[in-house]
């Protein structure tokens, strides 16, 4: 794809220039005041983060709710509601010392009892992903108001990565204890400890968050208000950013084709940071149960047939990375010796010949998340047809897509999944056979079952010795790389575009989902 490299090279170079040039003139002392106008796409179904896990909910409600920790861009834990913490040498006891002066938005004091209630009662009931993590926990105790002790059944080194706001948000015990969690009236007016309070929500138009005046970190937050604007049409969102109505465009709110144009505008900055904890990973589910995709050679042929560099350069404007295997390359446990499948249509045809593929049509289900994904579906179909695979594209809305994948009614289907910083939190779920169950589009949907892989993932999760753990993860990556239970197509980049006078917008590996407590806006003109 040498033809393409010059175009994309130009685009990335331009983007880099913008990013590098921006902060040079920045004023260093944060200024209070100002309003953030942020695009939110699509409109979240609710804001009660401990109950609703959709990506747009996490983005808005990360300002309202908090967890014990946050994570920097290297995924090292940082203090949040917990000022400090200790992990015992045997890896079984996690002790957190809470910040002493934290208050809920309604004025009640936040204490260790809230932590025990949130983790042990509320989230165990409402969040399956959190429940799976808490399965490793024997007991959660509160020896005093400001101390919480988690005791584990066996070492689980990834546990320290689980205290992110979307995974373990703190829930007010005084409001929820003993109530029906799903029908509590407070769900419409969520109460958290975060830097911003829920103010109002005009459905279909705007969500307003106001500054929390009693926030426990002195002087923060700096912004007076955050408005989250619901604008369903991508072109209108872009126009709203250009005319200054919006000053922050989170990843996904700008179509990829438009990214260079908006990023190159004067006074516009772009960053890819803030993505590290989630590592969204685009994949093609390949149905391992039936049809041609049940044959390992066919699945390998798919990997050889896909021109992933083209997709990265053209569809994603050179952002993102072609993965070498099942683990995101930014993960510490990624096996760096793994070679990505090259784009080799001849090899793909050879494999198809070898298995005796007879031209049986294969259904392709793209992800209905907008323009880029539709185009990507077209590119993948063309790649597959070029090596002689008969493809029929299906179209559906988000609900239909969820349904088809949950019911295993697909041959090849697009998806993307968060990796949550550790294989045991975000990756094992896609490959272990105990996670094969109809009804969810997020588990082992492809139906891959390999006892060796199950064993390696299970043992690695509870192995406290980093070297032994890495050896197991290396082995599992090699097995998966060869078996191709699904096709790994892209480590997605999540560019945020914002006006350069917004500072310290993204300061952690959780990005915008971590809330705007450090963000401040440089006021133009000093004669006020």
């Amino acid at each position, binding site marked *: 794809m040498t033809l393409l490299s010059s175009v994309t090279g130009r685009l990335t170079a331009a983007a880099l220039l913008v990013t590098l040039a921006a902060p040079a003139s920045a004023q260093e002392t944060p200024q209070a005041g100002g309003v953030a106008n942020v695009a939110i796409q699509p409109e979240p179904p609710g804001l009660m983060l401990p109950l609703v896990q959709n990506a747009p909910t996490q983005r808005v409600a990360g300002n309202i709710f908090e967890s014990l920790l946050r994570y920097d861009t290297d995924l090292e834990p940082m203090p949040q509601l917990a000022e400090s913490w200790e992990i015992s040498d045997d890896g079984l006891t996690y002790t957190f010392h809470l910040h002493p002066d934290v208050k809920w938005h309604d004025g009640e004091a936040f204490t260790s009892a809230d932590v025990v209630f949130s983790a042990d009662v509320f989230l165990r009931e409402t969040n399956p992903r959190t429940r799976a993590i808490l399965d490793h926990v024997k007991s959660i105790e509160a020896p005093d108001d400001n101390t919480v002790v988690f005791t584990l059944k066996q070492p689980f080194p990834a546990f320290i990565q689980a205290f992110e706001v979307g995974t373990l948000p703190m829930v007010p015990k005084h409001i929820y204890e003993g109530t029906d969690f799903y029908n509590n009236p407070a769900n419409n007016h969520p109460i958290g400890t975060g830097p911003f309070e829920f103010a109002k929500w005009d459905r279909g138009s705007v969500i307003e968050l106001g500054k929390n005046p009693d926030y426990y970190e002195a002087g923060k937050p700096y912004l007076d208000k955050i408005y989250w604007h619901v604008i369903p049409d991508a072109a209108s969102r872009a126009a709203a950013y250009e005319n200054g109505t919006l000053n922050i465009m989170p990843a996904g709110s700008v179509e990829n084709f438009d990214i260079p144009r908006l990023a190159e505008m004067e006074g516009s900055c772009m960053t890819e940071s803030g993505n590290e904890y989630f590592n969204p990973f685009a994949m093609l589910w390949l149905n391992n149960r039936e049809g041609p995709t049940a044959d390992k050679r066919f699945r390998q042929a798919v990997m050889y047939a896909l021109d992933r560099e083209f997709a990265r350069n*053209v569809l994603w404007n050179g952002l993102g990375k072609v993965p070498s295997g099942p683990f995101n390359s930014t993960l510490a446990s990624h096996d760096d010796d793994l070679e990505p499948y090259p784009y080799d249509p001849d090899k793909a045809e050879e494999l198809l010949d070898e298995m005796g593929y007879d031209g049986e049509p294969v259904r392709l289900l793209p992800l209905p998340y907008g323009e880029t994904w539709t185009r990507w579906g*077209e590119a993948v179909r063309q790649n597959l047809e070029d090596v002689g695979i008969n493809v029929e594209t299906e179209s559906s809305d988000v609900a239909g897509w969820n349904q088809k994948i949950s019911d295993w009614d697909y041959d090849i289907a697009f998806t993307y999944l968060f990796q949550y910083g550790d294989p045991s939190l975000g990756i094992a779920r896609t490959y272990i056979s105990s996670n094969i169950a109809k009804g969810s589009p997020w588990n082992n949907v492809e139906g891959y079952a390999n006892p060796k892989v199950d064993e390696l993932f299970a043992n690695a999760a509870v192995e406290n010795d980093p070297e032994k753990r890495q050896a197991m993860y290396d082995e599992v990556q090699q097995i998966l790389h060869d078996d191709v239970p699904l096709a790994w197509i892209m480590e997605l980049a999540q560019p945020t575009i914002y006006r350069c006078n917004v500072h310290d917008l993204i300061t952690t590996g959780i990005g915008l989902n971590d809330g705007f407590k450090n963000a401040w806006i440089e006021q133009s003109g000093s004669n006020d």
Partner: protein
Amino acid sequence: MSFFKRFAQNRGALGGLVILGLVVLLALLAPFLYPDSPWRMVQRPFLAPGEVSGFWLGTDVMGRDVAAGLAHGAWVSLLIGLISTVVALAIGVPLGALAGYFGGKIDDALMRFTEFFQTIPNFALAIVLVAIMEPSTVSIVLAIAIVSWPPVARLVRGEFLSIKHREYVEAARLVGQTHRDIIIKQILPNTLSPVIVLASLMVATAILLESSLSFLGLGDPDTMSWGYMIGAARTVMRQAWWLSVIPGVAILLTVLALNLVGEGLDDALNPQLARQR
């Protein structure tokens, strides 16, 4: 004066016929001019027309040849326009004929049924139908036919009402011809001219409907069509205006040509009306 002479008297109609002929030619030659799939990514994306020789209309957002898309899209547009019109006629003509010929309760029942469809906005109904059946060429043809047959039924009914009391029909009835024979052999042939004119306009409407559906992303995802090309290019209007303009002009010309031809047919088939104008 012969049919063709009368048709040719309308200059616009002649021009329309020429344009239409070119579009048909393009559609027929598409598999020979561009034997490759129009979906194939063949060059750098966003080439302006003529920037690289061999790509005289440039390339789209993914480096696909716009000219190839235009040629293959012509085939799809014409085919869907024609087939859905034929299907709409197959629904509308019998219903209108029965209603007009028998009158009374049958007429009431059939016309209320027709009105039921007429009261629902065409395009909204087409969207719903395609969304329910899942987008494919078949579902699009069906949806377009289902929303466009009511005017046919009303037109045919009107013609039947005016013709069924003419003397030759009475005579046919008197010699004992069956209802079926009277409808098919006596009346129907005499209603054909307005139906043909209407049909030519319906093809134009069907092409527009298909383009609108594809534009909204409800086209057959495996077929390259003009509406799809505009829909896919809409978001890059600012960077590459020609990507939406070229297929847009193609739709405009084809629909215009069909309308002009329809008008010419109207003149040719109804000489009295034409002369009065």
